[in-house]
Structures are given as structure tokens and as C-alpha cells.
């Protein structure tokens, strides 16, 4: 939490530094896995404000605090040409009640294949690939995960509809992800007879003005491990794009049951810096 606050202070102090040409908020926020999206769902958007032939770099720190767990994520990313996005994120799930922690690293690449978020009738469509690697595997292995690493492939379609609801712009996103991860990989991957499954994720965000947005997300989860139920994730958030260099997202999350501990709900806080 201290890191997040320090990061926020630095960002606010940074003022308007070099930023790309894209319109504010069109780089999205950075989700807990380090790529451009909402809070828990990857979007087709490319992180930062780099437009054609422009570079952008970003960094983020996020905390999800629910009843019996705390998930800290932080990472860095780079984008080019509003088309390529590379990201690296490190996650630590604190098992506050059970004791111990589960850590994993996530390397992601995203490529925009078609459409322009604001300007074309076709939604912006991107393909993404993520490589996830556990740094703690004793517990995942003990509860049935077969692998300490896994690949995920996703396709996302995102579009902003101008003047859609009460004169406000509306962003809609749909993502399909192929994954064999348990609890997004924090509880390992695969296992006896377990393979990749296609999962659906979605987001709806209302842009109240250029700097403020409120949204909701849904993330379907595969629920493949026998030892405890894994449930779909939902969130509700407000995002503040302070300027093209800094944004803050505050949310309410419902992560369902995790490792046998029921009804995990709580807060989500994320800060991001882009240059």
C-alpha cells in the first residue's frame, strides 16, 4: 500500500510530461495482469498514449483486498504504433487467513489486428498471448495443479460508442480467453486430465467526461481443480484519468469462493503512470 501511495504522489508531482497523441483514456487502464484493460479483463486497447509511429511506456501497482486474501500486482509495459504492447507483471497473493503467499510472473504480448477504438464501425480487435510462471508451486501442486507455468491466448474486441447513454460515450468490451490456469494461475495450471478451456470476459464502461469513467466487469473462470470451487469474478469501478501521465482506479470486487473460503469481496485500487 505504501508503494501505491508513493507511486501516486510521484505521478501527481510529475505534471504533464511527454505523452503520445492518443485521446485521453483511450489507452484504458492496466489490469492486474499488466496489460491494457479494465481491472481484471484484458481489452483490445493498446496501453498508453502512443499513436502511429509513437512509443509509450507505462507502469502500474494494484492491490485487491478481500476478506481472506490480498493480491498485490505491479509491472511495466511498453507499446509501439498503437499496435504492439509488451507487458510484464509480478503478482503476490497473500493468504491472510491460511498463511503464506503465492507468487507468479506474467509476460504478455498484444497485437492489434483490426479496427480503431474511436474511429471505425468495426470494434478494435486485438490478439494477446500471456506466459505465466509460478514462483511458489508447493501449494498449487498439493491441491492438484499439474504445471507451474502456462500459456493463455485471448482475442478481445473493444469499441467506444459516442453519445450512447445520456449523451455519454460507452465503451464495450468482449474477450475470449483460452486458459488452463486455476485462479488465474495463482493456483497453478493444468493437472490430471485438465486442459485449456475457453472463457468469456466482458466490460462495460460509461465515460462520464474525458477524465472520469465508471464501469463493471465480468470474468468467467474455468473451475477445474477438484479440491475447491473457483467462481466467476465481477467488479465495479470508477476510473480517474488525471492526465495522460497518471490514472487511478478504485473498485469493488466480488471474487466468489477461493480455496474453500467463501464470498471473497472487497476493494480494488490501482495507480498507473504512462509516458
Amino acid at each position, binding site marked *: 500500500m505504501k508503494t501505491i501511495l508513493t507511486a501516486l504522489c510521484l505521478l501527481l508531482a510529475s505534471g504533464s510530461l511527454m505523452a503520445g497523441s492518443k485521446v485521453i483514456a483511450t489507452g484504458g487502464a492496466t489490469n492486474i495482469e499488466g496489460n491494457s484493460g479494465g481491472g481484471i479483463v484484458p481489452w483490445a486497447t493498446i496501453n498508453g498514449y502512443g499513436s502511429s509511429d509513437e512509443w509509450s511506456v507505462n507502469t502500474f501497482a494494484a492491490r485487491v483486498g478481500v476478506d481472506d486474501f490480498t493480491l498485490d500486482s505491479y509491472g511495466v509495459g511498453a507499446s509501439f504504433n498503437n499496435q504492439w504492447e509488451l507487458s510484464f507483471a509480478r503478482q503476490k497473493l497473500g493468504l491472510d487467513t491460511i498463511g503464506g503467499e503465492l507468487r507468479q510472473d506474467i509476460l504478455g504480448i498484444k497485437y492489434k489486428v483490426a479496427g480503431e477504438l*474511436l474511429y471505425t464501425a468495426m470494434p478494435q480487435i486485438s490478439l494477446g498471448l500471456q506466459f505465466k510462471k509460478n514462483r511458489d508451486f508447493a501449494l498449487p501442486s498439493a491441491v492438484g495443479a499439474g504445471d507451474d507455468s502456462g500459456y493463455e491466448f485471448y482475442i478481445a474486441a473493444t469499441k467506444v460508442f459516442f453519445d450512447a447513454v445520456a449523451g*455519454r460515450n460507452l465503451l464495450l468490451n468482449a474477450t475470449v480467453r483460452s486458459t488452463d490456469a486455476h485462479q488465474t494461475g495463482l493456483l497453478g495450471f493444468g493437472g490430471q486430465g485438465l486442459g485449456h478451456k475457453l472463457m468469456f470476459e466482458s466490460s462495460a464502461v460509461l465515460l462520464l467526461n474525458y477524465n472520469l469513467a465508471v464501469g463493471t466487469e465480468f470474468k468467467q473462470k474455468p473451475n477445474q481443480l477438484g479440491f475447491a470451487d473457483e467462481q466467476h469474478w465481477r467488479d465495479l469501478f470508477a476510473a480517474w484519468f488525471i492526465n495522460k501521465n497518471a490514472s487511478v482506479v478504485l473498485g469493488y470486487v466480488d471474487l466468489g469462493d477461493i480455496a474453500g473460503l467463501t464470498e471473497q469481496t472487497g476493494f480494488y485500487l490501482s495507480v498507473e503512470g504512462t509516458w
Partner: protein
Amino acid sequence: MVKYLLLIATLTLTACQQKPETSLYQRLGAETGVEKIVDGVLYGIEHDQSIVHHFADTDIPRFRRLLIEQFCELSGGPCKYSGVSMQESHTGFQITQAHFDALVNHLITAMQQQNVAIEAQNEFLAMLAPMYKDVVYR
């Protein structure tokens, strides 16, 4: 929970929204408003090193008049755009997405400076956004 909050958000927004009886042209500030928005865009272009070169050979007073005509007609005002099509006027200029984005930013800044309501801004942007395909990479 989510449903209720969304409902509340929607109701609040709907309540705050003044259902516009007036045309978009009126809400952009009519003749004076449109002129000031266009002047704001021209100011933005003039001070933007990334796009100002595209206007090196442009007859600025004529460009200003055409832009005012176009904004006026698009928003439902009593004007008739007398210029050529967007596609014709931009072909060969090698306008990139970054150039287009820059222009959109200048338009937004100009509308913000004129205190145009966000609903009117979005309605206007909705009309202009599809021009992307006629302007960029022609």
C-alpha cells in the same frame, strides 16, 4: 448490487441530462460558437509541430471559412459546405493516425474552452469520427 448501482447511475445521468430541444448547432454556440471552436482548432494546429507542416501551403482564411461551413452544416446549422469531399481534400497528404488523433485533441480542447456541454461534444464527435477512413492514410 451491480444492477442497482448501474440503475442509480443511469437514473442520475438521465435526470441531469437536459433533453435537448435545440439543435446541436445551437448547443455548440450557433454562429459565434462554431467560429470560436474553429478558431480554437486553428490555434491548436498552429502550435502543434507534429501537424502544422500539413498546412504550409493552405490558404488559411479559406480553410477557416470551409471548416466553419462544414461544422455548421454538420451540426444542423443554416450553412452549406462548399468544399470538396473529405477524401478528395486529404488524399496525398499522408495523414497518419497520430495526425488525426492530434486534430481530435485540438477540437476537444477548443470545445472545452467554449464550455460546450459534454453531451453536445460527444454528439459532434460521433459525426466526425467516421471521417477517419476518408482522411487517414489516403
